[in-house]
């Protein structure tokens, strides 16, 4: 069986398309590359959707935490504390069993017990909390002069937020936010190792990698393949975020632009 046939058979296996049975013996390198790569579809899906949706909630939460009204501030603080203070792994488990019992009461919730929706909700809330904290930190360090200048121009309320506060907040938060995005993609590997079941063996990249490692007792092939995929993914994320960073900083003189640097304080 040539490698091309393997790609046709297993390329979309993680979505349930193609060959139904996973390879059982005579594992070839090509099979491992294809299946683990097909699992990456899930990782990218979880990461991209959670990141895009979480971005908006994070902005809201950050504004909430900076609000003066305690009825807005306290819920935001608790939201951030709960999701940042507890392990994502436990959150997945807790959410899964919560969704299970919700499903028992109301069948309306049944999609949430499967990974594509349930885990996505957890990841979405989780990344919103982490990015919310980052945005809040940036919000606190907006130069006072910027806001005073906005006031002097007669901007207030929504237009002040839209034109001055929000872009500056993003600009300051961006390096740390890049880090958060990288770690979110890493966190997506946890999904199928917690409560959420992989129906019909449609799993993510790590799920297939550990499948091969279990079957062959040889961890030295599948895990480096997985590592390679993730390093490429990380490089792509850094590249895209670097472009946005350049866009956010385009009005600044060349030497004042913030370089994207990994900040060890901001890892999760």
């Amino acid at each position, binding site marked *: 069986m040539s490698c091309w046939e393997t790609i046709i058979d297993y390329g979309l296996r993680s979505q349930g398309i193609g060959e139904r049975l996973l390879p059982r013996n005579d594992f070839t390198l090509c099979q491992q590359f294809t299946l683990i790569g097909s699992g990456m579809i899930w990782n990218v899906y979880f990461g991209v959707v959670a990141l895009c949706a979480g971005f908006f909630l994070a902005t809201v939460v950050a504004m909430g935490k900076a609000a003066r009204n305690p009825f807005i501030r306290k819920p935001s603080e608790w939201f951030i504390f709960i999701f940042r*203070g507890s392990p994502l*792994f436990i959150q997945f488990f807790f959410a899964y*069993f919560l969704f299970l019992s919700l499903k028992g009461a109301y069948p309306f919730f049944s999609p949430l017990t499967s990974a594509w929706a349930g885990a996505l909700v957890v990841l979405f809330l989780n990344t919103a909390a982490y990015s919310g904290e980052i945005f809040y930190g940036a919000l606190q360090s907006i130069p006072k002069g910027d806001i005073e200048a906005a006031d002097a121009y007669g901007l207030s309320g929504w237009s002040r937020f839209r034109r001055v506060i929000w872009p500056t907040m993003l600009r300051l938060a961006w390096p740390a936010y890049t880090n958060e995005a990288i770690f979110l993609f890493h966190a997506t*590997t946890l999904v199928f190792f917690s409560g959420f079941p992989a129906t019909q063996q449609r799993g993510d990249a790590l799920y297939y990698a550990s499948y091969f*490692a279990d079957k062959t007792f040889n961890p030295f092939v599948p895990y480096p393949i997985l590592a390679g995929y*993730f390093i490429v993914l990380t490089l792509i994320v850094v590249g895209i975020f670097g472009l946005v960073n350049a866009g956010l900083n385009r009005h600044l003189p060349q030497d004042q632009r913030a370089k994207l640097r990994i900040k*060890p*304080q901001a890892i999760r």
Partner: protein
Amino acid sequence: MSIYYALGTVLLLLAITGPVALAFGFGGASAARSHITPLRWIGKTYIAIVRGVPDIAFFLFFVIALDQMFEYIRHTIKCPDWTDPVRQGSDFVVCAAAKLPLGNAPQWVHETYGFSIAVLTFSIVFGAFAANVLFGAMRAVPRGQLETAEAYGMSRRQTFWRVLVPQMWVFALPGLSNLWMVLIKSTPLLFLLGVEDIVYWARELGGAKQPQFTDYPHPDWRIWYFFALLVFYLCFTKVSELVLDKIMARLTLGQATAAGERQRKAAR
């Protein structure tokens, strides 16, 4: 009863892994800024690879890889006249005397062995994160301090140990405390390494593998066990945060940083 043991397991893991990972990190950071080129490469690759790949992949990889490495070393020492290859297809075969732990060893030896492999894995992974933090901290020590040391005629080694190392901690602490939080939050992953930790017990106590809840006098309680775990981790994080703030305040005393300056002004 076992759940209390499991709680002890988690605390013990944290207590051992913390210092060991710090030692790994210190080694990695020193290697990364070494003047011997191969050593520097090793240090930098160590930091870069662990950062780019999800940590859970490492947990799954190292447990098998370390186990096989130990067994292989013992195999070559203890059974020199063994001619069959170690890898037979998808099996990993070593002679009986090289099995680790020995097949006839009591149960607690097996458990201790599993636990120490887990500790080693955690230390390697978190050592890389710590190395990243310490590497940054070493570069953050003001250049003038090192130049002064050189001006006093200290050798490279003396400068490193007497000037750089004592001063770097204050720069490293924000990163290290964040790392400690991350470490606390990844302890539930122990469950994946086959150690019977609290996640394991929360799953077991709540329901059997096939959920036959009728065996229990109560309905499915797993959701409450996981809720308890969530609260436990939240409290643990909060306490660590308070303690680390205290340490930070102590370390900042008399340092040439903005926070140290503020303390000096406040004390006057």
